[in-house]
């Protein structure tokens, strides 16, 4: 089975979020970037498990500049076989998706795995756009994935329960928590990653249909009001009379 895993970079979850250029761009100074957790923990690890069980090849793909290499090496260290970087700015979801689809269209991937969303832009958009551009079915936010005889079976959470879905391959699937368990790369993986193939593809800038005008910080919370633990019942009164939420 040939599997493509799309991996994005994201600021370390503990990063302080600040903006520059008059609040028009994210300030990357001092920010440590990681592989977007959904892409690494769930999509990539599940791809590797499927390959280990059934044979095949796992390629990771990122759209982005040279600063992506560290992220890609991490994915290779976890176990991906090879990697591709499409050398283009991540202007918006449409441009990223167009680059992914253009690369994948004639490579015969059985499965294209993405994370459910990037934790910086929180879009949940790229997997659906890639599916449409490649005319493939999409299962969004799958929490379980199995493949047999050219059919993918997924489970996902719906209001009040779980649903089991089936699609014929090739398909695009976006991964939510539950699909796999995080894997920590070992020394052998890290060494091997250094010599694995990382192809860099030069492209024309893709068309984009949205742009960020500016950023703003959410309004500051007012100070916490403390209730005496010996008189905790007071909290219920405050929630009713003051906060008006019960």
């Amino acid at each position, binding site marked *: 089975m040939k599997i493509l895993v799309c991996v994005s970079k994201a600021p370390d979850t503990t990063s302080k979020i600040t903006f520059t250029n008059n609040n028009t761009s994210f300030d990357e100074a001092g920010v440590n970037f990681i592989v977007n957790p959904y892409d690494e923990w769930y999509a990539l690890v599940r791809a590797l498990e499927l390959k280990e069980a059934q044979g095949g090849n796992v390629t990771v793909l990122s759209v982005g500049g040279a600063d992506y290499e560290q992220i890609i090496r991490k994915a290779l260290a976890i176990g991906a076989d090879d990697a591709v970087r499409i050398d283009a700015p991540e202007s918006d979801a*449409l441009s990223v998706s167009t680059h992914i689809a253009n690369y994948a269209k004639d490579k015969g991937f059985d499965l294209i795995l993405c994370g459910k969303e990037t934790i910086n832009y929180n879009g949940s*958009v790229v997997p659906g756009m890639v599916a449409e551009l490649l005319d493939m079915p999409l299962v969004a936010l799958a929490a379980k994935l199995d493949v047999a005889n050219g059919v993918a*079976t997924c489970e996902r959470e719906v*209001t009040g329960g779980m649903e089991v879905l089936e699609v*014929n391959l090739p398909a695009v699937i976006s991964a939510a928590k539950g699909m796999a368990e995080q894997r920590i790369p070992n020394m052998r993986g890290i060494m091997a990653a250094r010599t694995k193939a990382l192809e860099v593809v030069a492209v024309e800038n893709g068309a984009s*249909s949205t742009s960020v005008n500016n950023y703003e910080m959410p309004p500051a919370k007012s100070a*916490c009001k403390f209730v*005496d633990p010996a008189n*905790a019942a007071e909290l219920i009164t405050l929630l009713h009379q003051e906060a008006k939420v*019960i």
Partner: protein
Amino acid sequence: MKTIVFAEHLNGKFTKSSLEAVSYASAWSASAGGTCIAVTYGNIDASVLGTAGASEVWKMDALSSADGDQVTKLMLAAQKESGANAIVLSHDLVGKSVAPRLSVRLNAGLVSGATAIPAGNTVKKNVFSGKAIAHVTVNSELSIVTVLPNSYGVNTSGTACPVNAFSAEVGSARVRVKEVRVEESESIPLPEADKVVSAGRGMKGPENWGMIEELAKELNAATACSRPVSDIGWRPHHEHVGQTGIAIRPNLYIAVGISGAIQHLAGVNGSKVIVVINKDPEAPFFKAADYGIVGDAFEVVPQLIAAAKAFNATK
């Protein structure tokens, strides 16, 4: 301006997130002096969508269930027929499957997870897991917006509206539903809950969750937990909130024995009122709280249950 909005239903009822999307779409078109058409399918009384603000409903009766491809085709046909210049969906499973496809097909800019009505062609949305807000500009004539659940209130002041039959060539489903397993519990589904009682490792073990469930029941709230709690199997995975679990935005979020790590906050910082109960006055969660009790959960929570019972008795 004219908007069309997709409304999904489940077990004979429109979902809360769909009603929010219809309310949003109607308010948006009304703000620009236009009308809003709600699009749906199947066997349901759809005139109620008028209550949320729709001026009319277009319903495809022949379709009883639909996958993302089919909803996409339905919305493409409705857009063409109506000449709408904006398309709205909820940022739920349907919206996440359909809106990106519509964006590609119509060459229309998409802003996903909007939290407010657009100002001109600029739409507000949360980014960096709620740690910041972005104003995103749509650079196309047609805009597509998905509305973040629990961020826009449901309008109930409208009146029932006409439902017109609509039909489109939607093809067959490529995603086949094999089974739906409904969880037996009578508890409120977390993503739709208006109030949530959540607990963390401070509860010491799964045997102590009885009081969390009891407090939730008295407050008519859903239950949630921190990640380590679901990882070690004290609580089911679907209760895990935060960066890698689900993000919720209830009106009231009560956190018991949760330290308030940044990855946990990322999933709950959109809540309107946050209450933190923790025995450590230095717990970072207090910085994000509206109300706090520094104390032992095993002493505080039973008092709250008693107070909530007394409060309910007076209602």
